[in-house]
């Protein structure tokens, strides 16, 4: 009771200080630095630029200021030489607790003021895609929680050292590490969370969960460190160790402190957001699992139940196998490492299974043995929180599951069959998914989803057929627009909140112009499912992908800020262009993708064609500046890199550093070096028209069914060039 009684006078005293109000004022205006100086969220969505950046910058500046205020306030009685008197009146332990809570209360007042003041500014800047939920969550999580963390850290440093100078240096180093060396590590950057993008059109709960987890881990860790420092508060004129011995006499204190530190360690190590995928992305051992002998998959189905409130998924996948080997066979599946498999049944009988600790490309391997029966139905039940790939941990947010957006890819949708061949070249698949009835389900591919049943709990069950071992599914509050162009129908799906922007940007015309360009230059596309192509707008993801009959469009392609960018002419959407072009160049059946490190891949021709379209749409100078110069820069950087020139030095480094350095090796060669070579080939064959004719002929060539892939040699032969001709200077 005494502590509560003292809390209010302490808070009042704190709020009477001019320094406190100066810091409150500076913190309230600090989000402005996120609009001018410090922009960690690099995406061009409105929420990234006008919400994430100001909130993170506010957290950084406010955190540092409150850290300084904390040290200054804790040192006050010492500095004024009244500590002996103070200690005689109130226990220094009680006073430390009261001061801490008063400082945190003042930080909360500051946060409330900041949220109120920046509401109208953010609303005005963000425009029609402003969302109150995103706004409050961004400020509370990205800015607000930085303040108590800083206060706890600074207070702990002071209580350990009891020196103003040393506490400042410790706090500066701790904040400096977060802002520099730890900035790319999503768990360590305690002051500036790893947020690279917020979506305008869909929800952002996955990235908010990640930030919350990081903040809470640090909150527990710093509470533990603060509790340890609490035990070091000097008593009765004793030094640190004697005070510590005196303070630990109440055994609950050190136990609480140690428990908090241990809990934070466990929370750090057992984080549920990101898996432990092999950082060496050249290793693809899951694709080398030997096929089960004399076993084929005749059918598979899955019933998937995403929990849009909790962001989790539960499901039941069934597989029909024909086992003519007469023996037990081991079947392997790839499953999202965040899922727990509750049971595996073969023909209705529970059978043992194992899930590997080794993970690769966001999958763990589930292995089980099917009995020596000719017909086997294998049923797998799984549930859990889908984890994202460790190698993309600084770019989290893609595994979003909410009432407005769901994206489930391959092993996150249902266990992906690894080592069983299909029956007659097909894996007939039926997927059922139950989601809120406001959502539209869009399979990424040629399949068409239909509502199977509307349930009484406000959900609807959708069903679609597909073919393959994996599969990708998008669902959300989408609008569909049918575009008829060059004899094909494009089903264009985009978020409802994005409708105004899409219409203002002339997105439909942009799609038409890309299709018209490719059809005119290379020939018409043909799809297995009635000349229909899906173009789906995804949540901001920094890129896209394509498959037979479907391409992705990144939300960042068409944003309100892009519309105001005069350099991009009348059309935006370069990711959309790239992924649409993949319908002509790529999609597995055109390029042999067995060697991921081979510079000749679908990306080379696709990036080159994207450059040509961009050149036509935005003008030569834009294309030269944003494509050719950037390719050249990347290639130059690659070949000048010290470790590329001195591989013997690379071998001296620890393996994680080696992987970090070689990580973008295939990226530069496929996405930058190969387009440059094709550009050089264009010059050597006589210009753009000649190259277009060559590519047209290659696209419409007669395929060899035994090896239908377009090889680099075929390309060189068509150009009448040799490999040496295309060597870059």
């Amino acid at each position, binding site marked *: 009771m005494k502590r509560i009684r003292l809390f209010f006078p302490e808070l009042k005293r704190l709020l009477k200080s001019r320094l406190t109000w100066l810091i409150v004022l500076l913190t309230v205006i600090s989000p402005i630095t996120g609009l001018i*100086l410090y922009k960690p969220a690099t995406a061009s969505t409105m929420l990234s630029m006008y919400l994430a950046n100001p909130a993170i910058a506010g957290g950084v500046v406010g955190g540092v200021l409150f850290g300084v205020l904390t040290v200054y306030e804790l040192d006050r009685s010492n500095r004024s030489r009244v500590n002996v008197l103070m200690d005689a009146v109130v226990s220094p332990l009680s006073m430390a607790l009261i001061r801490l809570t008063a400082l945190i209360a003042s930080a909360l007042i500051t946060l409330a003021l900041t949220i109120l003041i920046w509401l109208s500014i953010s609303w005005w800047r963000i425009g029609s895609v402003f969302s109150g939920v995103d706004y409050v969550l961004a400020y509370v999580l990205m800015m607000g929680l930085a303040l108590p963390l800083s206060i706890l850290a600074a207070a702990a440093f002071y209580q350990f050292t009891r020196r103003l100078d*040393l506490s*400042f*240096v410790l706090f500066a*180093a701790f904040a400096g590490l977060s802002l*520099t060396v*730890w900035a790319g590590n999503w768990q360590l950057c305690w002051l500036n969370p790893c947020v690279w993008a917020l979506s305008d059109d869909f929800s952002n709960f996955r990235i908010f969960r990640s930030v919350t987890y990081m903040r809470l881990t640090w909150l527990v860790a710093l509470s533990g460190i603060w509790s340890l420092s609490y035990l070091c508060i000097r008593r009765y004129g004793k030094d640190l160790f004697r005070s510590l011995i005196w303070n630990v006499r109440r055994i609950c204190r050190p136990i609480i402190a140690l428990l908090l530190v241990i809990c934070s360690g466990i929370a750090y190590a057992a984080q549920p957001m990101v898996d432990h995928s092999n950082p060496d992305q050249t290793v693809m051992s899951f694709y080398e699992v030997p096929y089960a002998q004399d076993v084929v998959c005749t059918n598979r189905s899955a019933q998937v139940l995403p929990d849009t409130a909790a962001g989790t998924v539960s499901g039941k996948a069934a597989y029909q196998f024909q086992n003519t080997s007469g023996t037990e066979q081991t079947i392997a599946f790839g499953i999202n490492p965040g899922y727990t498999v509750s049971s595996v049944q073969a023909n209705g009988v529970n059978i043992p299974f194992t899930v590997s600790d080794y993970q690769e490309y966001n999958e763990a391997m589930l292995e089980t043995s099917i009995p020596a029966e000719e017909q086997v139905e294998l049923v797998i039940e799984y549930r859990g929180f889908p984890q994202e790939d460790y190698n993309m941990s600084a770019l989290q947010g893609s595994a979003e599951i909410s009432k407005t957006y769901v994206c489930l890819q391959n092993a996150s949708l249902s266990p992906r069959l690894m080592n069983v061949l299909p029956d007659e070249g097909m894996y007939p698949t039926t997927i059922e998914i139950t989601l809120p009835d406001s959502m539209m389900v869009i399979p990424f591919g040629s399949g068409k989803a239909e509502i199977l049943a509307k349930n009484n709990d406000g959900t609807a069950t959708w069903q679609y057929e597909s073919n393959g071992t994996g599969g990708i599914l998008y669902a959300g509050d989408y609008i569909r627009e049918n575009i008829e162009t060059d004899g094909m129908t494009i089903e264009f799906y985009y978020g409802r909140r994005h409708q105004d922007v899409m219409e203002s940007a002339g997105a439909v015309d942009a799609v038409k112009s890309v299709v018209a360009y490719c059809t005119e230059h290379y020939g018409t596309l043909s799809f297995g499912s009635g000349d229909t192509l899906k173009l789906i707008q995804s949540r901001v993801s920094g890129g896209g992908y394509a498959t037979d009959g479907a391409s992705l469009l990144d939300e960042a392609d068409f944003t309100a800020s892009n519309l105001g960018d005069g350099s991009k002419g009348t059309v935006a959407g370069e990711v959309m262009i790239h992924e649409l072009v993949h319908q002509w160049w790529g999609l597995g059946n055109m390029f042999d993708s067995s060697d991921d490190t081979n510079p000749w891949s679908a990306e080379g021709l696709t990036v080159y064609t994207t450059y040509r379209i961009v050149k036509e749409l935005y003008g030569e100078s834009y294309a030269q500046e944003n494509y050719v110069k950037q390719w050249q820069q990347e290639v130059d950087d690659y070949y000048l890199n*010290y470790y590329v020139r001195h591989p013997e030095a690379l071998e001296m480094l620890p393996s994680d550093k080696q992987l*970090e*350095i070689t990580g973008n090796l295939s990226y530069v060669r496929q996405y930058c070096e190969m387009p440059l070579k094709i550009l050089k080939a264009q010059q050597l064959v006589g210009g753009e028209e000649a190259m277009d004719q060559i590519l047209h002929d290659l696209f419409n060539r007669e395929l060899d069914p035994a090896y239908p892939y377009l090889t680099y040699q075929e390309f060189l032969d068509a150009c009448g060039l040799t490999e040496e001709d295309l060597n870059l200077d």
Partner: protein
Amino acid sequence: MIRIFQYECKRLLWNKFFFGILLILLFYGWQVLNGVTILGVSHTAPFSPWSFGDYLSRMIPLLWIGALFFLTFFTSQKAQRVTILTNATPVPIKQYTFARCAAAFAGTGLLCLACLIEAAVFYGQYFGWYRWGQLLFPALITFIPPLIFALGSGWLLGKYKSWLIYLWMLIPFLCMTLPLPNAFGIWNGSFFKEYPLSIETMDPSFTLPITVIIVQCILVILGIVLLVLDPRFLKKMAVK
């Protein structure tokens, strides 16, 4: 004089602050070496003078704070309360000031030395590289001018108003966020990243453009001038 210097050194170095900041610097430095320097800067080796210089420029903000905190031993209100006594001693005030600044400089120098030894250990451990002589010039040109300037300016400011020294600690952080001219590149770390690229040769040897040398020399001179400048001059200026 030497005894005063020794006494002041003992005051500065044989205390919690020195050992505390030493530990902090070593931890921070190891993080920088392992996270950033190991990748090499501007296509050069991690042990090139450029990468080494980048490491040093990342350490400057903490060393700057450390140097200024050393000065607070002499400029704080608590220290100034005993000035009447020290001024009454037969030692000339200027000599006494010189001994104190020399002690602060020695303390800062030891911290710098710790950073250099840490880098040497890192290079030896990871790359078996021991040609430290090549790194002497970058170390001198990167560390000495800003730290002399820190001591000179901090001394003057601290004598004028002791709290100004705390504000002065923010200067390197401010420099890191501002787009400074190339001549001040060492201050925000951009010099070691950008200048070797502008030379356009592979693994360029360590050279400095004349503007950077001038700025660093000015800093040294300015630091020394500010050290010898009478703080009463500032007060007079403020009154005017």
